[in-house]
Protein backbone atom coordinates (compact mmCIF):
# COMPACT_ATOMS: atom_id res chain seq x y z
CA UNK A 1 0.00 0.00 0.00
CA UNK A 2 2.76 2.42 0.98
CA UNK A 3 4.42 1.75 -2.29
CA UNK A 4 1.25 2.43 -4.18
CA UNK A 5 0.68 5.72 -2.37
CA UNK A 6 4.21 6.72 -3.24
CA UNK A 7 3.76 5.93 -6.90
CA UNK A 8 0.50 7.88 -6.97
CA UNK A 9 2.28 10.83 -5.40
CA UNK A 10 4.87 10.69 -8.12
CA UNK A 11 2.14 10.89 -10.70
CA UNK A 12 0.44 13.83 -9.04
CA UNK A 13 3.55 15.99 -8.84
CA UNK A 14 3.89 16.69 -12.58
CA UNK A 15 0.18 17.46 -12.73
CA UNK A 16 0.50 19.91 -9.85
CA UNK A 17 3.35 21.52 -11.71
CA UNK A 18 1.17 21.83 -14.82
CA UNK A 19 -1.76 23.19 -12.83
CA UNK A 20 0.29 25.93 -11.20
CA UNK A 21 1.92 26.75 -14.51
CA UNK A 22 -1.50 27.26 -16.04
CA UNK A 23 -2.70 29.57 -13.27
CA UNK A 24 0.59 31.43 -13.36
CA UNK A 25 0.30 32.03 -17.08
CA UNK A 26 -3.29 33.14 -16.63
CA UNK A 27 -2.24 35.63 -14.02
CA UNK A 28 0.51 36.84 -16.25
CA UNK A 29 -1.77 37.37 -19.22
CA UNK A 30 -4.75 38.36 -17.15
CA UNK A 31 -3.21 41.13 -15.17
CA UNK A 32 -1.70 42.70 -18.22
CA UNK A 33 0.46 45.15 -16.41
CA UNK A 34 -0.13 44.21 -12.77
CA UNK A 35 1.43 47.42 -11.60
CA UNK A 36 -1.08 49.52 -13.40
CA UNK A 37 -3.79 47.20 -12.23
CA UNK A 38 -2.65 47.74 -8.67
CA UNK A 39 -2.11 51.45 -8.84
CA UNK A 40 -4.92 52.37 -11.14
CA UNK A 41 -4.82 55.66 -13.06
CA UNK A 42 -2.38 57.55 -10.89
CA UNK A 43 0.71 55.71 -12.05
CA UNK A 44 4.00 57.32 -11.29
CA UNK A 45 6.68 55.79 -13.57
CA UNK A 46 9.29 55.89 -10.80
CA UNK A 47 7.19 54.18 -8.19
CA UNK A 48 5.98 51.75 -10.82
CA UNK A 49 9.55 50.77 -11.62
CA UNK A 50 10.29 50.31 -7.93
CA UNK A 51 7.27 48.06 -7.49
CA UNK A 52 8.31 46.10 -10.54
CA UNK A 53 11.71 45.38 -9.05
CA UNK A 54 10.25 44.65 -5.69
CA UNK A 55 7.83 42.07 -7.08
CA UNK A 56 10.39 40.64 -9.53
CA UNK A 57 8.34 41.69 -12.51
CA UNK A 58 11.41 42.80 -14.43
CA UNK A 59 12.87 39.30 -14.27
CA UNK A 60 12.41 36.67 -17.04
CA UNK A 61 9.15 34.74 -17.04
CA UNK A 62 10.77 31.58 -15.74
CA UNK A 63 12.16 33.33 -12.67
CA UNK A 64 8.80 34.88 -12.04
CA UNK A 65 7.26 31.42 -12.10
CA UNK A 66 9.68 30.09 -9.49
CA UNK A 67 8.95 33.17 -7.45
CA UNK A 68 5.23 32.45 -7.77
CA UNK A 69 5.77 28.81 -6.78
CA UNK A 70 7.81 29.87 -3.80
CA UNK A 71 4.96 32.07 -2.63
CA UNK A 72 2.42 29.33 -3.25
CA UNK A 73 4.36 26.94 -1.05
CA UNK A 74 3.96 29.26 1.90
CA UNK A 75 0.30 29.83 1.05
CA UNK A 76 0.72 33.29 -0.40
CA UNK A 77 -1.75 33.69 -3.24
CA UNK A 78 -1.49 37.42 -3.55
CA UNK A 79 -3.67 40.27 -2.40
CA UNK A 80 -7.32 40.88 -3.09
CA UNK A 81 -7.76 44.32 -4.69
CA UNK A 82 -11.34 44.45 -3.66
CA UNK A 83 -11.30 43.06 -0.15
CA UNK A 84 -7.87 44.52 0.67
CA UNK A 85 -6.62 41.41 2.43
CA UNK A 86 -4.66 38.29 1.44
CA UNK A 87 -6.38 36.04 -1.08
CA UNK A 88 -5.56 33.00 1.02
CA UNK A 89 -7.60 34.35 3.90
CA UNK A 90 -10.55 35.10 1.60
CA UNK A 91 -10.41 31.61 0.18
CA UNK A 92 -10.03 29.92 3.57
CA UNK A 93 -13.30 31.50 4.67
CA UNK A 94 -15.21 30.13 1.73
CA UNK A 95 -13.61 26.69 1.40
CA UNK A 96 -15.61 24.82 4.08
CA UNK A 97 -18.96 25.68 2.55
CA UNK A 98 -17.94 24.39 -0.86
CA UNK A 99 -16.36 21.21 0.50
CA UNK A 100 -19.49 20.58 2.53
CA UNK A 101 -21.71 21.07 -0.49
CA UNK A 102 -19.54 18.99 -2.82
CA UNK A 103 -19.25 16.18 -0.31
CA UNK A 104 -22.99 16.09 0.31
CA UNK A 105 -23.64 16.15 -3.44
CA UNK A 106 -21.23 13.29 -4.03
CA UNK A 107 -22.86 11.24 -1.30
CA UNK A 108 -26.25 11.88 -2.89
CA UNK A 109 -24.85 10.93 -6.30
CA UNK A 110 -23.22 7.73 -5.10
CA UNK A 111 -26.15 6.59 -3.02
CA UNK A 112 -28.92 7.44 -5.45
CA UNK A 113 -26.93 6.55 -8.55
CA UNK A 114 -25.49 3.37 -7.10
CA UNK A 115 -28.76 2.00 -5.84
CA UNK A 116 -30.70 3.00 -8.94
CA UNK A 117 -28.05 1.52 -11.22
CA UNK A 118 -28.02 -1.73 -9.28
CA UNK A 119 -31.79 -2.04 -9.47
CA UNK A 120 -31.72 -1.31 -13.20
CA UNK A 121 -29.08 -3.98 -13.80
CA UNK A 122 -30.75 -6.63 -11.68
CA UNK A 123 -34.12 -5.87 -13.24
CA UNK A 124 -32.56 -5.63 -16.68
CA UNK A 125 -35.05 -5.06 -19.51
CA UNK A 126 -38.00 -4.45 -17.22
CA UNK A 127 -40.11 -1.37 -16.61
CA UNK A 128 -37.88 -0.52 -13.63
CA UNK A 129 -34.86 -0.51 -15.88
CA UNK A 130 -36.58 1.74 -18.40
CA UNK A 131 -37.77 4.13 -15.72
CA UNK A 132 -34.39 4.43 -14.03
CA UNK A 133 -32.56 4.84 -17.29
CA UNK A 134 -34.99 7.53 -18.44
CA UNK A 135 -34.60 9.42 -15.19
CA UNK A 136 -30.83 9.21 -15.28
CA UNK A 137 -30.86 10.38 -18.88
CA UNK A 138 -32.90 13.37 -17.76
CA UNK A 139 -30.48 13.88 -14.88
CA UNK A 140 -27.50 14.19 -17.18
CA UNK A 141 -29.37 16.38 -19.67
CA UNK A 142 -30.61 19.07 -17.32
CA UNK A 143 -28.54 22.21 -16.75
CA UNK A 144 -27.48 22.23 -13.11
CA UNK A 145 -28.64 25.76 -12.33
CA UNK A 146 -31.97 25.27 -14.05
CA UNK A 147 -32.59 22.13 -12.02
CA UNK A 148 -31.76 24.25 -8.98
CA UNK A 149 -34.35 26.84 -9.96
CA UNK A 150 -36.98 24.19 -10.56
CA UNK A 151 -36.29 22.62 -7.17
CA UNK A 152 -36.60 26.05 -5.60
CA UNK A 153 -39.95 26.52 -7.30
CA UNK A 154 -41.25 23.11 -6.35
CA UNK A 155 -39.92 22.47 -2.86
CA UNK A 156 -39.20 26.00 -1.78
CA UNK A 157 -41.90 28.20 -3.19
CA UNK A 158 -44.84 25.91 -3.91
CA UNK A 159 -44.42 23.23 -1.25
CA UNK A 160 -42.37 25.31 1.13
CA UNK A 161 -40.47 22.31 2.53
CA UNK A 162 -36.96 23.68 2.39
CA UNK A 163 -35.28 27.08 2.56
CA UNK A 164 -34.29 28.27 -0.86
CA UNK A 165 -31.22 30.31 -0.27
CA UNK A 166 -28.26 30.90 1.94
CA UNK A 167 -26.23 28.86 4.35
CA UNK A 168 -28.47 29.34 7.36
CA UNK A 169 -26.80 28.36 10.59
CA UNK A 170 -25.00 25.56 8.74
CA UNK A 171 -27.82 23.12 9.41
CA UNK A 172 -29.12 20.30 7.30
CA UNK A 173 -32.21 21.92 5.79
CA UNK A 174 -30.30 24.57 3.89
CA UNK A 175 -28.07 21.89 2.41
CA UNK A 176 -30.79 19.66 0.99
CA UNK A 177 -31.74 21.49 -2.19
CA UNK A 178 -28.23 22.57 -3.22
CA UNK A 179 -26.86 19.05 -2.65
CA UNK A 180 -29.69 17.48 -4.64
CA UNK A 181 -29.14 19.97 -7.43
CA UNK A 182 -25.43 19.45 -7.62
CA UNK A 183 -25.64 15.68 -7.15
CA UNK A 184 -28.32 15.00 -9.76
CA UNK A 185 -26.04 15.10 -12.78
CA UNK A 186 -23.48 12.76 -11.22
CA UNK A 187 -26.24 10.52 -9.91
CA UNK A 188 -27.35 10.11 -13.51
CA UNK A 189 -23.87 9.23 -14.70
CA UNK A 190 -23.23 6.90 -11.79
CA UNK A 191 -26.54 5.10 -12.29
CA UNK A 192 -25.71 4.53 -15.94
CA UNK A 193 -22.21 3.36 -15.11
CA UNK A 194 -23.28 1.10 -12.25
CA UNK A 195 -25.84 -0.51 -14.48
CA UNK A 196 -23.49 -1.21 -17.35
CA UNK A 197 -20.62 -2.29 -15.09
CA UNK A 198 -22.88 -4.63 -13.18
CA UNK A 199 -24.32 -6.11 -16.36
CA UNK A 200 -20.78 -6.67 -17.59
CA UNK A 201 -19.70 -8.28 -14.33
CA UNK A 202 -22.77 -10.51 -14.25
CA UNK A 203 -21.60 -11.99 -17.53
CA UNK A 204 -18.24 -12.98 -16.02
CA UNK A 205 -17.41 -16.57 -15.30
CA UNK A 206 -16.71 -15.97 -11.63
CA UNK A 207 -20.33 -15.01 -11.15
CA UNK A 208 -21.23 -18.35 -12.63
CA UNK A 209 -18.77 -19.99 -10.26
CA UNK A 210 -20.47 -18.27 -7.36
CA UNK A 211 -23.87 -19.48 -8.53
CA UNK A 212 -22.52 -22.98 -9.07
CA UNK A 213 -21.49 -23.01 -5.41
CA UNK A 214 -25.17 -22.75 -4.54
CA UNK A 215 -25.08 -19.18 -3.28
CA UNK A 216 -28.28 -17.16 -3.11
CA UNK A 217 -28.75 -14.75 -6.01
CA UNK A 218 -28.74 -11.89 -3.51
CA UNK A 219 -25.31 -12.91 -2.23
CA UNK A 220 -24.03 -13.41 -5.75
CA UNK A 221 -25.01 -9.87 -6.67
CA UNK A 222 -24.27 -7.99 -3.47
CA UNK A 223 -21.01 -9.74 -2.62
CA UNK A 224 -19.45 -11.11 -5.78
CA UNK A 225 -20.74 -8.86 -8.52
CA UNK A 226 -21.08 -5.48 -6.85
CA UNK A 227 -17.62 -5.54 -5.33
CA UNK A 228 -16.20 -5.79 -8.85
CA UNK A 229 -18.67 -3.43 -10.49
CA UNK A 230 -17.77 -0.71 -7.99
CA UNK A 231 -14.29 -0.37 -9.48
CA UNK A 232 -15.21 1.32 -12.77
CA UNK A 233 -17.87 3.33 -10.92
CA UNK A 234 -15.22 4.67 -8.57
CA UNK A 235 -13.04 5.71 -11.48
CA UNK A 236 -15.99 7.51 -13.03
CA UNK A 237 -16.87 9.18 -9.74
CA UNK A 238 -13.31 10.47 -9.52
CA UNK A 239 -13.53 12.01 -12.97
CA UNK A 240 -17.10 13.12 -12.36
CA UNK A 241 -15.92 15.09 -9.40
CA UNK A 242 -14.42 17.61 -11.79
CA UNK A 243 -17.82 18.00 -13.37
CA UNK A 244 -19.45 18.23 -9.99
CA UNK A 245 -17.08 20.98 -8.93
CA UNK A 246 -17.71 22.72 -12.23
CA UNK A 247 -21.35 22.89 -11.24
CA UNK A 248 -20.47 24.43 -7.90
CA UNK A 249 -20.32 28.07 -9.05
CA UNK A 250 -23.72 27.74 -10.72
CA UNK A 251 -25.37 25.96 -7.82
CA UNK A 252 -23.89 28.38 -5.33
CA UNK A 253 -25.19 31.30 -7.35
CA UNK A 254 -28.70 29.88 -7.54
CA UNK A 255 -28.87 29.14 -3.82
CA UNK A 256 -26.73 32.08 -2.65
CA UNK A 257 -24.46 29.54 -1.03
CA UNK A 258 -21.41 31.27 0.43
CA UNK A 259 -18.78 29.03 -1.15
CA UNK A 260 -15.80 29.32 -3.42
CA UNK A 261 -17.88 29.23 -6.57
CA UNK A 262 -19.92 32.25 -5.60
CA UNK A 263 -16.75 34.00 -4.55
CA UNK A 264 -15.26 33.20 -7.93
CA UNK A 265 -18.21 34.68 -9.79
CA UNK A 266 -18.43 37.82 -7.69
CA UNK A 267 -14.67 38.36 -7.87
CA UNK A 268 -14.98 38.09 -11.61
CA UNK A 269 -17.64 40.79 -11.57
CA UNK A 270 -15.30 42.99 -9.54
CA UNK A 271 -12.35 42.08 -11.78
CA UNK A 272 -10.55 40.96 -8.66
CA UNK A 273 -8.19 38.77 -10.67
CA UNK A 274 -5.99 37.41 -7.86
CA UNK A 275 -9.08 36.06 -6.12
CA UNK A 276 -10.42 34.55 -9.36
CA UNK A 277 -7.20 32.71 -10.05
CA UNK A 278 -6.65 31.74 -6.45
CA UNK A 279 -10.09 30.18 -6.35
CA UNK A 280 -9.45 28.48 -9.68
CA UNK A 281 -6.26 26.95 -8.37
CA UNK A 282 -7.99 25.86 -5.20
CA UNK A 283 -10.69 24.08 -7.21
CA UNK A 284 -8.02 22.14 -9.07
CA UNK A 285 -6.35 21.22 -5.80
CA UNK A 286 -9.62 20.00 -4.33
CA UNK A 287 -10.12 17.87 -7.38
CA UNK A 288 -6.63 16.40 -7.25
CA UNK A 289 -6.89 15.74 -3.53
CA UNK A 290 -10.24 14.04 -3.85
CA UNK A 291 -8.99 11.93 -6.72
CA UNK A 292 -6.10 10.85 -4.61
CA UNK A 293 -8.59 9.57 -2.05
CA UNK A 294 -10.51 7.79 -4.80
CA UNK A 295 -7.31 6.05 -5.87
CA UNK A 296 -6.67 4.92 -2.34
CA UNK A 297 -10.20 3.55 -2.12
CA UNK A 298 -9.63 1.75 -5.38
CA UNK A 299 -6.46 0.18 -4.10
CA UNK A 300 -8.22 -0.90 -0.95
CA UNK A 301 -10.93 -2.68 -2.91
CA UNK A 302 -8.93 -4.19 -5.74
CA UNK A 303 -6.06 -6.43 -4.67
CA UNK A 304 -4.64 -6.41 -8.20
CA UNK A 305 -3.70 -2.73 -8.04
CA UNK A 306 -0.77 -3.39 -5.78
CA UNK A 307 0.76 -5.78 -8.26
CA UNK A 308 0.28 -3.82 -11.44
CA UNK A 309 1.84 -0.71 -9.98
CA UNK A 310 4.73 -2.53 -8.45
Amino acid sequence: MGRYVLSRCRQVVPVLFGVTLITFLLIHVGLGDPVRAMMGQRSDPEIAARIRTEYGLDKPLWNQYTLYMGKLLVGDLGYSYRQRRPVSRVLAERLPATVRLAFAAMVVALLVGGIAGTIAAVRHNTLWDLLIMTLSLLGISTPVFWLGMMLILLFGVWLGWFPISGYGDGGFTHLVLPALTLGALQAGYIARMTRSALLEVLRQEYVQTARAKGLRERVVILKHALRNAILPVLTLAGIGLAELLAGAPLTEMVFAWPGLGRLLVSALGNRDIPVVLGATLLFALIYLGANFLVDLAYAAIDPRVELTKR
Partner: protein
Amino acid sequence: MEPLLVVKNLKKYFPLKRGIWFGEGAEVRAVDGVSFEVRRGETMGLVGESGCGKSTMARLILRLLEPTAGEVYFGKASVFETNKEEMRQLRRRMQIVFQDPYSSLDPRMPVDEIVGEGLTIHRLARGKEKTDRVVDLLEMVGLGREHMGRYPHEFSGGQRQRIGIARALAVGPEFLIADEPVSALDVSIQAQIINLFEDLQEQLGLTYLFIAHDLRVVKHISDRVAVMYLGQIVELADSDELYRNPLHPYTQALLSAIPEVDPQSKRQRIFLEGDPPSPVQIPSGCRFHPRCPKRFDRCDQEEPVLREVSAGHWVSCHLY
Protein backbone atom coordinates in the same frame (compact mmCIF):
# COMPACT_ATOMS: atom_id res chain seq x y z
CA MET B 1 20.81 -27.08 -48.58
CA GLU B 2 21.29 -23.34 -48.53
CA PRO B 3 19.65 -21.59 -45.56
CA LEU B 4 17.05 -18.94 -46.34
CA LEU B 5 16.92 -17.59 -42.82
CA VAL B 6 19.73 -17.54 -40.29
CA VAL B 7 19.11 -16.49 -36.70
CA LYS B 8 22.24 -15.89 -34.65
CA ASN B 9 22.32 -15.54 -30.89
CA LEU B 10 19.11 -13.50 -30.87
CA LYS B 11 18.11 -11.84 -27.60
CA LYS B 12 15.19 -9.68 -26.60
CA TYR B 13 14.83 -8.34 -23.07
CA PHE B 14 11.84 -6.21 -22.14
CA PRO B 15 12.45 -3.79 -19.29
CA LEU B 16 9.86 -3.93 -16.54
CA LYS B 17 8.68 -0.42 -15.76
CA ARG B 18 8.61 0.40 -12.10
CA GLY B 19 7.28 3.83 -11.34
CA ILE B 20 8.30 6.79 -13.37
CA TRP B 21 11.41 8.06 -11.71
CA PHE B 22 13.23 5.12 -10.25
CA GLY B 23 13.84 2.21 -12.62
CA GLU B 24 14.81 -0.88 -10.76
CA GLY B 25 16.25 -2.70 -13.71
CA ALA B 26 14.21 -5.89 -13.75
CA GLU B 27 13.62 -7.30 -17.20
CA VAL B 28 11.75 -10.03 -18.96
CA ARG B 29 14.10 -12.22 -20.94
CA ALA B 30 11.64 -13.24 -23.61
CA VAL B 31 14.23 -14.50 -26.08
CA ASP B 32 17.61 -15.28 -24.62
CA GLY B 33 20.24 -16.35 -27.12
CA VAL B 34 18.54 -18.27 -29.91
CA SER B 35 20.32 -19.52 -33.04
CA PHE B 36 18.94 -21.65 -35.86
CA GLU B 37 18.57 -21.80 -39.62
CA VAL B 38 15.63 -22.34 -41.89
CA ARG B 39 16.44 -23.98 -45.20
CA ARG B 40 14.83 -22.93 -48.44
CA GLY B 41 11.65 -24.89 -49.12
CA GLU B 42 11.37 -26.60 -45.74
CA THR B 43 8.95 -26.18 -42.89
CA MET B 44 10.65 -25.45 -39.62
CA GLY B 45 8.46 -26.05 -36.60
CA LEU B 46 8.85 -24.09 -33.36
CA VAL B 47 7.07 -25.50 -30.31
CA GLY B 48 6.93 -24.42 -26.74
CA GLU B 49 4.45 -23.55 -24.02
CA SER B 50 2.96 -20.12 -23.50
CA GLY B 51 5.53 -17.54 -22.46
CA CYS B 52 8.50 -19.43 -23.91
CA GLY B 53 9.23 -16.59 -26.33
CA LYS B 54 8.15 -18.15 -29.59
CA SER B 55 5.89 -15.30 -30.65
CA THR B 56 8.55 -12.74 -29.72
CA MET B 57 10.87 -14.65 -32.03
CA ALA B 58 8.43 -14.22 -34.90
CA ARG B 59 8.17 -10.50 -34.26
CA LEU B 60 11.93 -10.13 -34.07
CA ILE B 61 12.55 -11.95 -37.33
CA LEU B 62 10.09 -9.61 -39.05
CA ARG B 63 11.63 -6.66 -37.26
CA LEU B 64 8.37 -5.71 -35.62
CA LEU B 65 10.62 -5.47 -32.57
CA GLU B 66 14.23 -4.40 -32.35
CA PRO B 67 16.45 -7.02 -30.70
CA THR B 68 18.54 -6.54 -27.57
CA ALA B 69 21.34 -8.43 -29.29
CA GLY B 70 21.93 -10.83 -32.16
CA GLU B 71 21.45 -10.97 -35.88
CA VAL B 72 18.97 -12.27 -38.39
CA TYR B 73 19.96 -12.87 -42.00
CA PHE B 74 17.35 -13.30 -44.65
CA GLY B 75 19.01 -14.50 -47.83
CA LYS B 76 21.98 -12.19 -47.97
CA ALA B 77 20.43 -9.28 -46.13
CA SER B 78 21.04 -8.62 -42.46
CA VAL B 79 17.55 -7.75 -41.27
CA PHE B 80 18.51 -5.40 -38.46
CA GLU B 81 21.00 -3.47 -40.56
CA THR B 82 18.83 -2.64 -43.52
CA ASN B 83 17.64 0.90 -44.06
CA LYS B 84 14.00 1.86 -44.45
CA GLU B 85 13.72 1.28 -48.19
CA GLU B 86 15.66 -1.99 -48.09
CA MET B 87 13.41 -3.14 -45.27
CA ARG B 88 10.37 -2.31 -47.36
CA GLN B 89 11.72 -4.45 -50.17
CA LEU B 90 12.59 -7.21 -47.73
CA ARG B 91 9.05 -7.23 -46.37
CA ARG B 92 7.75 -8.36 -49.75
CA ARG B 93 9.72 -11.56 -49.30
CA MET B 94 8.75 -12.47 -45.74
CA GLN B 95 5.21 -12.45 -44.40
CA ILE B 96 3.26 -13.61 -41.38
CA VAL B 97 -0.07 -15.21 -40.53
CA PHE B 98 -1.25 -14.50 -37.00
CA GLN B 99 -3.05 -16.54 -34.40
CA ASP B 100 -6.12 -14.56 -33.61
CA PRO B 101 -8.55 -14.58 -36.51
CA TYR B 102 -10.44 -11.73 -34.84
CA SER B 103 -7.84 -9.09 -34.17
CA SER B 104 -5.66 -9.90 -37.18
CA LEU B 105 -8.06 -8.33 -39.70
CA ASP B 106 -8.96 -4.64 -39.67
CA PRO B 107 -12.66 -4.62 -38.76
CA ARG B 108 -13.29 -1.46 -40.81
CA MET B 109 -11.93 -2.77 -44.11
CA PRO B 110 -13.69 -4.93 -46.66
CA VAL B 111 -11.96 -8.15 -47.67
CA ASP B 112 -10.80 -6.95 -51.09
CA GLU B 113 -9.02 -4.00 -49.51
CA ILE B 114 -7.43 -6.18 -46.84
CA VAL B 115 -6.12 -8.65 -49.39
CA GLY B 116 -5.20 -5.96 -51.92
CA GLU B 117 -3.38 -3.68 -49.49
CA GLY B 118 0.00 -5.30 -50.11
CA LEU B 119 -0.49 -4.86 -53.86
CA THR B 120 -1.12 -1.16 -53.37
CA ILE B 121 1.75 -0.62 -50.95
CA HIS B 122 4.29 -2.18 -53.28
CA ARG B 123 2.58 -0.83 -56.42
CA LEU B 124 2.22 -4.34 -57.79
CA ALA B 125 -1.16 -3.87 -59.39
CA ARG B 126 -3.98 -1.39 -59.66
CA GLY B 127 -7.50 -1.02 -61.04
CA LYS B 128 -8.86 -4.02 -62.85
CA GLU B 129 -5.57 -5.86 -62.62
CA LYS B 130 -5.61 -5.52 -58.86
CA THR B 131 -9.17 -6.80 -58.66
CA ASP B 132 -8.20 -9.82 -60.73
CA ARG B 133 -5.20 -10.52 -58.53
CA VAL B 134 -7.36 -10.28 -55.40
CA VAL B 135 -9.87 -12.73 -56.88
CA ASP B 136 -7.00 -15.10 -57.75
CA LEU B 137 -5.65 -14.87 -54.23
CA LEU B 138 -9.06 -15.47 -52.66
CA GLU B 139 -9.61 -18.49 -54.87
CA MET B 140 -6.17 -19.77 -54.01
CA VAL B 141 -7.14 -19.90 -50.33
CA GLY B 142 -10.56 -21.38 -50.99
CA LEU B 143 -12.69 -18.24 -50.99
CA GLY B 144 -14.20 -16.49 -53.96
CA ARG B 145 -15.18 -13.31 -55.76
CA GLU B 146 -18.46 -13.16 -53.85
CA HIS B 147 -16.54 -12.52 -50.60
CA MET B 148 -14.75 -9.37 -51.83
CA GLY B 149 -16.97 -6.60 -50.49
CA ARG B 150 -17.72 -8.20 -47.14
CA TYR B 151 -16.28 -7.22 -43.80
CA PRO B 152 -14.32 -9.50 -41.44
CA HIS B 153 -17.14 -9.86 -38.91
CA GLU B 154 -19.22 -11.64 -41.56
CA PHE B 155 -16.78 -14.57 -41.63
CA SER B 156 -16.09 -17.56 -39.43
CA GLY B 157 -12.72 -18.09 -37.75
CA GLY B 158 -11.46 -20.48 -40.41
CA GLN B 159 -12.49 -18.15 -43.23
CA ARG B 160 -10.78 -15.22 -41.56
CA GLN B 161 -7.62 -17.24 -41.31
CA ARG B 162 -7.89 -17.88 -45.05
CA ILE B 163 -8.22 -14.12 -45.61
CA GLY B 164 -5.11 -13.56 -43.49
CA ILE B 165 -3.20 -16.06 -45.61
CA ALA B 166 -4.36 -14.40 -48.83
CA ARG B 167 -3.21 -11.01 -47.51
CA ALA B 168 0.23 -12.43 -46.76
CA LEU B 169 0.51 -14.10 -50.16
CA ALA B 170 -0.49 -10.97 -52.08
CA VAL B 171 3.04 -9.57 -52.15
CA GLY B 172 4.50 -12.87 -53.36
CA PRO B 173 6.66 -13.85 -50.39
CA GLU B 174 9.17 -16.71 -50.30
CA PHE B 175 9.00 -17.12 -46.55
CA LEU B 176 5.95 -17.28 -44.34
CA ILE B 177 5.86 -17.25 -40.56
CA ALA B 178 2.73 -18.90 -39.20
CA ASP B 179 2.30 -17.86 -35.57
CA GLU B 180 -0.15 -20.33 -34.01
CA PRO B 181 -2.36 -20.12 -37.11
CA VAL B 182 -4.75 -22.92 -36.13
CA SER B 183 -4.87 -22.88 -32.35
CA ALA B 184 -7.98 -20.73 -32.20
CA LEU B 185 -9.90 -22.95 -34.61
CA ASP B 186 -12.16 -25.96 -34.19
CA VAL B 187 -10.62 -29.36 -34.88
CA SER B 188 -12.45 -29.97 -38.13
CA ILE B 189 -11.45 -26.52 -39.40
CA GLN B 190 -7.85 -26.87 -38.17
CA ALA B 191 -7.34 -29.72 -40.59
CA GLN B 192 -8.63 -27.61 -43.49
CA ILE B 193 -6.17 -24.83 -42.75
CA ILE B 194 -3.23 -27.19 -42.22
CA ASN B 195 -3.99 -28.79 -45.57
CA LEU B 196 -4.18 -25.35 -47.15
CA PHE B 197 -0.72 -24.50 -45.81
CA GLU B 198 0.63 -27.72 -47.28
CA ASP B 199 -1.00 -27.17 -50.65
CA LEU B 200 0.29 -23.61 -50.87
CA GLN B 201 3.80 -24.72 -50.02
CA GLU B 202 3.68 -27.22 -52.85
CA GLN B 203 2.22 -24.76 -55.36
CA LEU B 204 4.35 -21.76 -54.52
CA GLY B 205 7.52 -23.32 -53.15
CA LEU B 206 7.17 -21.48 -49.86
CA THR B 207 9.40 -21.81 -46.84
CA TYR B 208 7.60 -21.90 -43.48
CA LEU B 209 8.44 -21.15 -39.91
CA PHE B 210 5.49 -22.79 -38.19
CA ILE B 211 5.00 -21.75 -34.57
CA ALA B 212 2.56 -23.66 -32.35
CA HIS B 213 2.06 -25.13 -28.93
CA ASP B 214 0.28 -28.20 -30.26
CA LEU B 215 2.95 -30.82 -30.87
CA ARG B 216 0.65 -32.94 -32.98
CA VAL B 217 0.14 -30.13 -35.45
CA VAL B 218 3.81 -29.19 -35.54
CA LYS B 219 4.85 -32.78 -35.99
CA HIS B 220 2.43 -33.17 -38.83
CA ILE B 221 3.50 -30.19 -40.85
CA SER B 222 7.20 -29.72 -40.09
CA ASP B 223 10.36 -31.16 -41.61
CA ARG B 224 12.43 -30.11 -38.64
CA VAL B 225 11.31 -29.01 -35.19
CA ALA B 226 12.89 -26.77 -32.56
CA VAL B 227 11.66 -26.97 -28.96
CA MET B 228 11.82 -23.77 -26.92
CA TYR B 229 11.82 -23.40 -23.17
CA LEU B 230 12.09 -20.04 -21.37
CA GLY B 231 13.56 -18.12 -24.26
CA GLN B 232 16.00 -20.75 -25.51
CA ILE B 233 16.01 -23.67 -27.90
CA VAL B 234 16.55 -26.84 -25.89
CA GLU B 235 16.34 -29.34 -28.72
CA LEU B 236 16.27 -29.26 -32.51
CA ALA B 237 16.03 -32.20 -34.86
CA ASP B 238 14.31 -33.70 -37.85
CA SER B 239 10.66 -34.06 -37.06
CA ASP B 240 10.57 -37.87 -37.14
CA GLU B 241 13.83 -38.15 -35.21
CA LEU B 242 12.59 -35.76 -32.53
CA TYR B 243 9.41 -37.70 -31.94
CA ARG B 244 11.06 -41.14 -32.15
CA ASN B 245 14.09 -40.26 -30.09
CA PRO B 246 13.56 -37.18 -27.91
CA LEU B 247 16.71 -36.46 -25.92
CA HIS B 248 15.97 -33.45 -23.75
CA PRO B 249 13.94 -34.32 -20.63
CA TYR B 250 11.65 -31.39 -21.41
CA THR B 251 10.90 -32.68 -24.90
CA GLN B 252 10.30 -36.11 -23.45
CA ALA B 253 7.85 -34.72 -20.94
CA LEU B 254 6.10 -32.61 -23.57
CA LEU B 255 5.65 -35.59 -25.84
CA SER B 256 4.43 -37.85 -23.09
CA ALA B 257 1.93 -35.22 -21.99
CA ILE B 258 0.09 -35.18 -25.31
CA PRO B 259 -3.13 -37.12 -24.97
CA GLU B 260 -2.99 -39.90 -27.55
CA VAL B 261 -6.08 -40.54 -29.66
CA ASP B 262 -5.98 -44.24 -28.95
CA PRO B 263 -7.47 -45.55 -25.73
CA GLN B 264 -5.29 -48.68 -25.92
CA SER B 265 -1.89 -47.07 -25.89
CA LYS B 266 -1.18 -46.44 -22.23
CA ARG B 267 2.24 -44.87 -22.41
CA GLN B 268 4.46 -44.09 -19.50
CA ARG B 269 3.68 -40.48 -18.53
CA ILE B 270 6.37 -38.13 -17.34
CA PHE B 271 4.85 -35.50 -15.10
CA LEU B 272 6.68 -32.25 -14.68
CA GLU B 273 6.49 -30.58 -11.33
CA GLY B 274 5.22 -27.06 -11.00
CA ASP B 275 4.78 -24.35 -13.57
CA PRO B 276 7.33 -22.85 -15.92
CA PRO B 277 9.26 -20.17 -13.97
CA SER B 278 8.70 -16.57 -14.95
CA PRO B 279 11.10 -15.19 -17.56
CA VAL B 280 11.92 -12.43 -15.07
CA GLN B 281 13.63 -14.78 -12.65
CA ILE B 282 15.42 -17.36 -14.74
CA PRO B 283 16.89 -20.24 -12.71
CA SER B 284 20.65 -20.60 -12.52
CA GLY B 285 22.49 -23.20 -14.57
CA CYS B 286 20.18 -25.14 -16.84
CA ARG B 287 16.95 -23.18 -16.80
CA PHE B 288 14.93 -26.37 -16.84
CA HIS B 289 16.59 -27.90 -13.79
CA PRO B 290 13.95 -27.03 -11.14
CA ARG B 291 11.35 -29.10 -13.02
CA CYS B 292 13.66 -31.73 -14.50
CA PRO B 293 13.14 -35.34 -13.39
CA LYS B 294 16.70 -36.25 -14.41
CA ARG B 295 18.60 -33.36 -12.88
CA PHE B 296 21.94 -33.95 -11.17
CA ASP B 297 24.41 -31.76 -9.33
CA ARG B 298 25.89 -30.12 -12.39
CA CYS B 299 22.54 -28.83 -13.62
CA ASP B 300 22.03 -25.92 -11.27
CA GLN B 301 25.66 -24.85 -11.60
CA GLU B 302 26.47 -24.74 -15.25
CA GLU B 303 24.36 -23.69 -18.22
CA PRO B 304 24.39 -26.30 -20.98
CA VAL B 305 24.96 -25.27 -24.59
CA LEU B 306 23.08 -26.42 -27.67
CA ARG B 307 25.32 -29.13 -29.22
CA GLU B 308 24.92 -31.47 -32.16
CA VAL B 309 24.89 -34.93 -30.60
CA SER B 310 24.12 -36.85 -33.76
CA ALA B 311 23.72 -35.76 -37.35
CA GLY B 312 21.22 -32.89 -37.37
CA HIS B 313 20.08 -33.54 -33.81
CA TRP B 314 20.91 -30.71 -31.45
CA VAL B 315 20.24 -30.72 -27.74
CA SER B 316 21.15 -28.51 -24.82
CA CYS B 317 21.48 -30.85 -21.84
CA HIS B 318 24.29 -32.09 -19.61
CA LEU B 319 23.17 -35.69 -20.08
CA TYR B 320 24.61 -35.81 -23.59
